[in-house]
């Protein structure tokens, strides 16, 4: 598959839905694996990295799941193409910076992607819409089991799968869910929530992983411990915590609707106005307003049909996606103009939010 084909279609998770999809955008699971007899990528010389790539890439391409896959060496991709893959969560920012001996292989549906010679020889990822961590793990587990026939993995009976960084040792598994939590942000409970998750061994991060800002009220929650627990137990623990977060988020939304309905109307109404009529808009402003439109869909103020369009826009308005659609490099100012254009066009059919259902509460509003 060529890069242009990959680009044409939004990833499958954007076009389909899964359980709890109003709050859980995606579930992702990644496994880290290394081959016996080669230094880890960060320490390996170029020749060793290339030899690893030459073993791993064909093994991946032969898998039934990866039929007609997109498979490319990092040196063959332009900076913008690599950035597009980052914006789609198909490769990491670190992998985008890699050179010779590093490659990326992914299936047509963009549900399985593998980074070769990122921090480990193999970093494979499965992504699903909604809350489906176990299903994502099962699909990846199957691929992993098929791969181990051809690729002898570095494994130790005590330490499990050996990884470059001891923080990934054991299962080599990181399971994460992308949660949309505007209710907890608006009611200022989000910091408390993040600290609570940290205390029970879970990490909460922004939209693009470690050290990134929480944009669009999106948060990634993932396991930090990889050693000493079975994969299924790690996922069950995450599932329980996410279930609780979903309940908290729903409560927070209901509480805002009851106590401060005008504030809620204002946030969603403003988002509608800006996105429909702005001609210059930054990525941050756009993402935060899109979050409010999505919340409007969840609460029934905006037609449900708009949801897919909003989900696709979250990715399409990112810098590299804009430059691919413009077919040239754009300055930040030019990007802000094109971004506003794309959003206005996409939302052309969007009708003003219908707040009928909460207007009756207005008399009690003490805001």
């Amino acid at each position, binding site marked *: 598959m060529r890069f242009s084909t990959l680009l044409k279609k939004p990833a499958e998770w954007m076009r389909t839905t899964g359980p709890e999809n109003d709050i859980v955008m995606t579930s992702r699971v990644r496994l880290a694996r290394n081959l016996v007899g080669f230094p880890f990528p960060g320490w390996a010389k170029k020749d060793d990295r290339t030899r690893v790539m030459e073993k791993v890439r064909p093994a991946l391409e032969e898998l039934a799941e990866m039929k007609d896959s997109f498979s490319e060496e990092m040196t063959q991709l332009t900076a913008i193409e690599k950035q597009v893959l980052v914006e789609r969560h198909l490769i990491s920012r670190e992998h985008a910076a890699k050179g010779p001996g590093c490659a990326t292989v992914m299936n047509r549906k963009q549900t399985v992607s593998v980074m070769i010679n990122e921090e480990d020889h193999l970093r494979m990822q499965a992504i699903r819409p909604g809350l489906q961590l176990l299903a994502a793990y099962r699909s990846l587990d199957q691929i992993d089991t098929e791969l181990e026939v051809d690729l002898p993995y570095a494994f130790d009976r005590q*330490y499990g799968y050996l990884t470059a960084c001891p923080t990934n040792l054991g299962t080599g598994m990181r399971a994460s869910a992308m949660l949309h939590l505007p209710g907890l942000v608006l009611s200022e409970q989000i910091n408390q929530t993040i600290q609570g998750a*940290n205390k029970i061994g879970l990490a909460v991060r922004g939209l693009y992983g470690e050290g990134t800002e929480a944009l669009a009220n999106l948060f990634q929650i993932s396991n930090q411990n990889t050693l000493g627990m079975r994969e299924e137990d790690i996922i069950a623990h995450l599932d329980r915590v996410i279930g609780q977060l979903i309940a908290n988020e729903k409560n927070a939304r209901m509480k805002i609707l009851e106590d401060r309905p005008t504030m809620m109307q204002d946030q969603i109404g403003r988002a509608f106005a800006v996105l429909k009529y702005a001609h210059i808009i930054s990525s941050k402003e756009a993402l935060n307003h899109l979050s409010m439109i999505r919340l409007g869909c969840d609460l029934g103020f905006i037609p449900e049909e708009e949801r897919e369009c909003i989900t696709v826009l979250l990715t399409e308005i990112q810098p590299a996606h804009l430059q691919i659609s413009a077919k040239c490099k754009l300055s930040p100012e030019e990007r802000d103009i094109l971004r506003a254009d794309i959003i206005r066009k996409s939302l052309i059919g969007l009708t003003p939010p219908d707040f009928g259902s909460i207007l009756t509460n207005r008399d009690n509003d003490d805001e």
Partner: protein
Amino acid sequence: MNCDICHTEKATIFFSQMAEGKLQKVNLCKVCADDKGVTDPTGFALADMLEGMGKQTAVDTGPARNELVCGSCGFTQTDFKKTGRFGCADCYHVFDEGLDGLLEAMHKHTRHVGKAPQSFPEANDRAAASAPVSVAETNPRARLSELRQALSKSVEDEDYEEAARLRDAISRLETILGES
């Protein structure tokens, strides 16, 4: 100075504690400090963390000992302290002294119980996974680090006869493996 946990961010929060006559230090960045609950006075136990990381961060007050080098890939202890990553799979056996403490701090466990490749059928069996393992029988480097651990224990226990025996065994094995 970089954070002792993530090794990428600059450390901005510093803790020191005297334990067993040794000064132990932990340097953290803001993110890891928050992660570990350090900034929350109720949720943080410095002692627990030091217990886990002590061996990695103890300030060496004695004479510089011979630095360990991985025979397979040439990675050194200093490289590990600098990057927080290992050079190859064999490094896990070469540098396993103190590793359990580090893993305990990171994962609260030191032993894998999850999936194993088909070629490790015994590791797929949970019972076998929880039984003591000795890779040392087949792996001379693992044997070497086992001996080194036994040596530090015998010194701690003031069993100097045993320590002398172990010291000689270690130097014989080192000669065979071409390490020193």
